[in-house]
Structure formats: C-alpha cells, structure tokens
C-alpha cells in the first residue's frame, strides 16, 4: 500500500439473505429467502488524516460498510486492507450496565474496548470531566436520559487509542453543545494523524466536521469528494432526483407527490405527461396538500368547471394557501366584476407612464390572477416599473420568479430582481435573498452570501434576520465563529422583539404630556436596537435640538445607519449633507441618496429630485424628468407637489377650454378625483 493510504478497498461485493414471501418455491417450515445485493464492486482509498463522512439513505448500507471495514462482517468478494489499529464504535450506547454507576460503566466499557484497567483508572478523572455529568456520574445508568447516555459513551471513546476510528451515528444524539465538543474531538484526532470514518444523517454535521464525504447509493459509491460538495449534491438529489422523490411519493409523502406532479408538468427528469401530472396532483390533493389543491382548482377553472374549482380553492385555502384564499374569495363574493372594473381603472392610469402606476396594476394583476395570461400581463407591467427603477416592482418580480407560479421557476432572474430591490434598501428582499442562499434548495447553498444579506437586513432591524445572524455567528456558518457577536445579535433580536410594545408605550406617553423624558428614553432604546423609523426621528431631534442636546454629528450618524433601509432617512441625510456642504455645488452623495430614496417610493424625495431636475442643481437640467417626478410625488401624496401639479392641470384645462375643440382626457380627470379622495 502507498504510504498514506490506510484503508484500501477493491472490488468489494456483499449481499444479504433476506426473506421474500413472494418467492415461488414453497418449502414447509422454511422461510422463502433470496440473496439481496448491498454492494456491487466498491473501490475506495482512504488516506491518513481524513475525516470521512458516509452519506446515504436509510438501508443503503452505511452501517454494513463500516462493519466490513472493522472486520465484523466479511465481504463476499473483493478485499479490504486496513493499516493500523481499528476502533469501531458502532453503537454508542451498547453494553452499558443499567444498574452500575456511570463511573463503573466507564471502567467497564473502556475495558471492553481493550484498555487495561490501570490505564483506565489513570484517565478516569479526565473522562468524567469530559462527560460533564456532574454528580450524576455516581448514579446508576438506568436513571440517565438518552442524551446523558450518549455523552457518557462518547467520553469513553475519547480515551480509546487506535489509528482508525469507525463511528456509526456518533454525533446525532446529545445537545448541540456536546455535539460540537464531540466534533471538535474528532478534528483533534485527525490532527494527530488518526483517521475517522463516520456515518450521519445530519448533512450539517458532515459538512462541518468532515474533510471528505462518500455518498453510497444503489449498491455503489455515487460520489466521493470534498465534504461540502458531496453534501450539496446529496441534498440536491433528495430534492431533485425523480427516482428519490418518486419513492418518497409512493411512501405517501404529499409534498413529494406534489413535486412529482410538477416534474411531470415541466418535464424534469421525466417526459411531460399531463395525465400523470393530474394523477399525482390528485394523490397529493387527497392528502390535503394546499398547492396541489390549488393547482387542481386552476385546472378545473380553465376547463370551465367553476363549481369544482371553488370547492378545491376552499379546501386549499383551509389548508393554508393564501393564493387559493384570494381566488376563493374572488369567486365566492361575486367580486369578479368589481375586480375587472378595478383592473380597467388601474390599467387606464398606466397610460400616465409612471412606474408607480405600472407597479400598482402589475400587483393587482398578480394578486387577482386566474389565468396564465393574467400572470403574463402582471410580469409585463412589473417589468416596466422595474426598468424605471421602482423597488416594489423588483421585489414582486423577484418573488414571482422564485415561486415560479407562472412559468418555470427562474432562480437567476429572481436573484437579479431581489438583489436590485435589496440594494435599494428593501428589507424584505434582503432576507428573502438570505433565505434563498441559506436553504440551498433552489440554488447552490452559499452561507457566506446568505450571511451577507442576513447581516444587511439585520442591521436595518429585521428581527428574523437578527436571529439568523446570531445563529450563524454561533455556529460559525458562513462567517468566522464568534460567540460574542452571536450574543450581541441575539440581544438585538430580543430587543427588536420588544420594540413593538416600546412603540406603543412611547405613543401613549407622548399623548400624556409631561412624560417627554421617558418617551425620549424609549426612543433612544428603540434606535439603539436599529429600528429605522426611530433612528430617523431621533436624528431629527438631535438635528433640531428638540428635547436633546443639539448634535449634528449624532444626527448624521443615526441617519447613516437608518439610511440602509431606504426611504425617508435617506432624504433627511441628503438634506443634512447638503446643508453642511460648503463647496457651493450640490454634493453628489446627496444626489445619489435622493435618487435611491425616490426609487424606494419616498414622495418627499421625488419632490426634491423634481426640483433638482428643474434647477439643474448637481444634475443636468431636464424638464421632462422634472414633470415626471413632480407628478409621481403628487400621486404619492406630497402636498407641495400636489399644489404644483394642480397648478399645471388648471393651466392645461384653461388652455384646452380656450381652444375648445380639444378633447379633455378623462384619465387626468379621474386621477384628479383620486387625489382628492
């Protein structure tokens, strides 16, 4: 054998005798047996210093594999050469004597692993300390919980001396702290030149602990390579393989059945087949799978069977499908007419050419979509709005492509749109991106990227993301492990959670005059936990010196922090920068901030931007843009803008009436009404 290879396996074959009642030869008293192959020619080299994780579905032969390496089972064909002393810990809780104390059991077990008694006694204190069992160590093992038992068992293993360790399902019991301690121990073993092979169902454990992973499937090694790559592929296969999903579906998993249905619909891994698609939808629908029910209802709807569709929508709605709830409500309440009326109104408004109107119409179409054409129209309008830099449209599009509720799912597009929205400070988009990268369900898992987005969203005060960031810091996933930072984020998370009540308290206090100091304290607390709105209003107070010591610096700092989440704070910050700027020209930073705030939908920013366009301040003069932004600002309810726009309209009307022949566009009139209402 080469120097580094400690386990060499060549042409390994193994089969088990199993009972099969369907066999035809009937013999009296003897059960009907046949040979069932488990491995069919496996070649594998394992080098010194590897931590190898063995992956595979239940019954694929992971344990059998370890047993053959340890020599407990013999292969039918092929060779296994092992260099060095092997310690096989195939069942951690084996061989405990329930009546003996933990201490006695440590001694007994160590001896069962072949460690002489004197040596055991020498290390006994160390082992007991490692178990972390405290006074329980002198109590009978029968009083232990299963987690305590596995801690005891693992601690014994720590003292076993061997070159190769084979461990079956080692780290799956015990609490998280102990699991990480155990995984640390395995890494230490490897550093001292040992080799570790272990099986686990936890993909995360394998990813975190192993240098290499071997995936056993269909009697052979399906993949062998760096742990994270193999785990990635394995996770994908469980999600995406037709065969794996089919077997789950046949076992009665409704979500697998729904997935199979979509495979048949889209022709993924199997030929497109409408009958099969509907058949599997029905299977899943029987088990009340909401999406399957919803899809079936859509099919019924397109076939014109409204009654059946309504019933299915109702069931889907009861099982938690929002989409179905909406459709059900639409169909039930005879609101279809109302909706189509609203649709036509919003569509008319689109002729104004404002992204705001495109986005509104797109959203309405999306939310009231019944046919595929509706979705297409929604996409069309949302795309227009998005092209004009409308953040809400980006978010909606990203969401649509992610869920794939129209055409096939398109993750790349979803990422593009969500990133755009997120970069403009849309918090929802930020953590949606985080989730996408973190789940690794639709695209390759990327913890670093996920962390980046979670962190962004967390620093803008999203509670869920704060929690997630804390978790990632504590597990060291996607970022260097840092318990202190983890604690800080968890603290932020909890303070965000109480912010709602803080806000209520603050509002009440403000109503009762005289408690301003207290109310201010609350405001400070809220802004400390990164509540964007609070930060902005606190900054305002600092700036004006209302109830606080005037401090422009503090105001600026707060605004910078808050401005990550977009909107009003950006405008404020821009204004502050502008006033502080002494160069006489309009600062570029302010302009950028105003632009982004405007695309985020802040009416004040739009108004400001319009004025800038008009005056050509820091930007090229552009009267078209000026009018566009002014109108948009007025639509969004900016009072100053409204006055300006009203002035325009009056002027046009006057001119029109002067001309007399001109047709007064009804759209404008409609808009006018809407504004006033």
């Amino acid at each position: 054998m080469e120097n580094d290879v400690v386990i060499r396996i060549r042409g390994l074959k193994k089969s088990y005798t199993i009972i099969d009642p369907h066999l035809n030869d009937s013999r009296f008293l003897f059960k009907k047996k046949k040979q069932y192959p488990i491995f069919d020619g496996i070649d594998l080299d394992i080098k010194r210093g590897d931590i190898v994780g063995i992956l595979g579905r239940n019954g694929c032969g992971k344990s059998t594999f370890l047993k053959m390496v340890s020599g407990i089972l013999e292969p039918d064909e092929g060779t296994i050469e092992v260099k060095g002393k092997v310690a096989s810990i195939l069942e951690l809780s084996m061989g405990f004597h329930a009546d003996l104390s933990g201490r006695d059991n440590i001694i007994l077990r160590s001896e069962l692993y072949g460690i002489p008694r004197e040596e055991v006694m020498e290390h006994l204190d160390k082992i007991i300390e490692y178990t972390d069992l405290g006074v329980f160590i002198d109590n009978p093992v029968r009083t232990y919980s299963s987690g305590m038992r596995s801690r005891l068992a693992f601690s014994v293993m720590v003292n076993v001396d061997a070159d190769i360790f084979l461990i079956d399902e080692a780290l799956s019991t015990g609490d998280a702290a102990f699991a990480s301690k155990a995984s640390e121990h395995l890494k230490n073993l490897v550093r001292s030149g040992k080799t570790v092979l272990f099986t686990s169902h936890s993909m995360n454990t394998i990813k975190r602990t192993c240098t290499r992973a071997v995936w056993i499937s269909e009697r052979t090694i399906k993949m062998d390579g760096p742990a994270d790559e193999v785990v990635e592929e394995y996770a994908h296969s469980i999600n995406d393989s037709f065969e794996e999903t089919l077997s789950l579906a046949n076992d009665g998993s409704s979500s697998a059945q729904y997935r199979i249905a979509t495979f048949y619909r889209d022709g993924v891994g199997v030929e497109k087949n409408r009958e099969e698609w509907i058949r599997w939808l029905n299977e899943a629908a029987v088990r009340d799978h909401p999406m399957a029910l919803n899809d079936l209802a859509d099919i019924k709807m397109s076939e014109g069977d409204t009654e059946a569709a309504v019933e299915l929508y109702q069931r889907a709605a009861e099982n938690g499908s929002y989409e179905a709830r909406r459709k059900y409500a639409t169909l039930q309440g005879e609101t279809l007419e109302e909706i189509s009326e609203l649709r036509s109104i919003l569509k008319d408004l689109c002729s104004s050419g404002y992204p705001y109107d495109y986005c509104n119409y797109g959203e309405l179409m999306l939310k009231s979509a019944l046919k595929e054409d509706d979705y297409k129209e929604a996409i069309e309008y949302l795309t227009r709005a998005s092209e004009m830099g409308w953040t809400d449209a980006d978010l909606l599009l990203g969401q649509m492509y992610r869920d794939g509720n129209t055409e096939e799912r398109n993750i790349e597009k979803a990422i593009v749109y969500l990133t755009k929205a997120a970069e403009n400070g849309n918090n929802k988009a930020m953590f949606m991106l985080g989730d996408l990268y973190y789940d690794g369900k639709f695209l390759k898992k990327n913890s670093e990227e996920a962390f980046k987005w979670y962190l962004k969203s967390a620093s803008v005060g999203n509670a869920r993301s704060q929690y997630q960031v804390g978790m990632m810091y504590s597990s060291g996933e996607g970022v260097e492990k840092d318990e202190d930072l983890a604690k800080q984020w968890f603290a932020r998370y909890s303070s965000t959670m109480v912010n709602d009540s803080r806000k209520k308290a603050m509002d009440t206090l403000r109503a009762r005059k005289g408690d301003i100091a207290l109310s201010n304290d609350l405001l400070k607390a809220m802004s400390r936990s990164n509540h964007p709105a609070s930060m902005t209003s606190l900054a305002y107070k600092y700036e004006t010196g209302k109830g606080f010591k005037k401090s422009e610096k503090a105001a600026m700092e707060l605004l910078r922090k808050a401005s990550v989440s977009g909107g009003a704070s950006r405008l404020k910050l821009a204004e502050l920068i502008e006033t502080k700027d002494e160069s006489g020209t309009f600062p570029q930073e302010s302009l950028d901030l105003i632009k982004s705030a405007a695309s985020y939908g802040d009416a004040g920013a739009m108004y400001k931007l319009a004025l800038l366009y008009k005056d050509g301040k820091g930007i090229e003069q552009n009267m078209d843009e000026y009018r566009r932004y002014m109108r948009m600002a007025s639509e969004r309810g900016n009072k100053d803008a409204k006055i300006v726009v009203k002035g325009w309209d009056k002027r046009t009307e006057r001119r029109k009436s002067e001309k007399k022949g001109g047709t007064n566009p009804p759209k404008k009139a409609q808009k006018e009404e809407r504004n006033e209402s």
Partner: protein
Amino acid sequence: MINIFTRLAQSFKDVRANKTILLAMIRRNTAGRYKSTYVGFVWHLLLPVLMIVVLTITFTYIRPRAMEDFWIYLSAGIFPVYFISSCLRGRAITANASYVTKMKIPREIIVFSTVITEFLSVVFAYMVIIIVILLSGQYVNWLGMAMLPVELFLMFIFSLGSSYLISTITVFIKDVGYIMSIVMRLVIWITPTFFLASEAKGLLATIVWYNPFTYYVETFHDILYYGIFPHTEYLLMSLILAAGMFLLGAFVFFTFEKKFPEVL
C-alpha cells in the same frame, strides 16, 4: 473445512491478547448481578450456603432419607448439574447479540466469559461444601481430593464445548434454545443427584449411563461423599467426553461464527 487445531491455537492467542475484554465481560456478568442489593457480592457465597441449608432441611426433616449425610451427596451433584445445563441452554451468543454485531472482538470470548461466569458459582459452592466437610470432621481422602480440580477442569471443557455447539445452532435455529431448556429439565431427573446411580431400576438404570452428566456427577460423589479416589472409568469417560465435545463444539463454532453478525 477449517483446520480445527490451527484455529484453536489462533483462538488461544486471540483470547490471551484480549484478556482485558474477557475479564471485563466476566465482571460485567458478575458485578452487575447483585449490584442493587444491600450485601452485594456476599450473595455469591450466601446463595450456595442457603441452598445447602434448604436441601438439608428438606431431606432430613420433610422427606427423610436413610442415607447418612445425604446433604453432601445432594450438593456435590446438584451444582455441577445446574452448571452444565445452563451452559447447554445455548443462549451465550443470542443473549449478547450486540457484542457480535457491533464490536470487533474474538467471538469465542463471549461464550468463554458466560461459561466462566457460571463456572464461578460451582467453584464458590464447592468451596462452601469443602469448608463445611472439614469443619464437621468428615473423612477426607486427600488423594481423591487432589483429583477435584482436574475433574472440575474436565467438566469446564465439556461445558465449554457444548456451549460452543448449542449456542452456534441457536443462532441459526432459535427454536433449539427452547427445546434445550426442556431437554435439560429431563436430564436433571435422569442424573444421579436425588437418587443413587446404583439404586436406579428399570429403564432409568440403563439410560442413566448414557447420560454424560452422570460420569462427572459420580466422580464428584466419589470424591466428596464416599471419600475415595474416583473410579478410573468415570475419570476416563470424563476425559473422553470433554475432549470429544470440545473438538466438536469448537469445530462447529469456528466454522459458522463468520455468519453470526449477518444472522443476528
């Protein structure tokens, strides 16, 4: 076909190399046994004493026998019979299945340790009996007494061999375990423990000498009860039976042991 002698030599080496494990298993079998009791280890000695007391009371007052010191006759026979029959129940491997399937140890150690554990009870009991004999001033044939360890060893080998054999069969055919426990009940009644071999009449007089237990029990009777040097033919039969049973049992065991983890 395995070469039983080279395999046995190998096995001897394996067991020696894994002495720690063997001792640990014996300790596991014994130490745990009386762990939750107040007197603990004392029960190992107390049980045989109490058993002898019960037998003496029964056959002196409840069902009196004309024979003098009948309790010595009884206890000299009953402990070996219990020992052999417990080894012949063949549960050594099936009761410790997890050691077979989850640990890489020489599997004979599992059988070995259970037989030794049982054997220890006989040794404790005999120690008690011999002490009582000496204290009560019975006649002792020292030359015969010297043969006691030899005979105990032969009995041990016989039981080990039969345990190898039966526990191997039980792994593949579980029914054998139940059949053997019934057979053992019968064998106890056709072994001269409660009666004298010479007093047996009719059918019993014939089959009692086809029962391998008889030769071991009669040797012990000779040494402890009659206080003579044991009959040579009993000794010879003990030797032949031990050697034969051990070779047969070991052969079967080592031929099939590789299949154990798959079947269990």
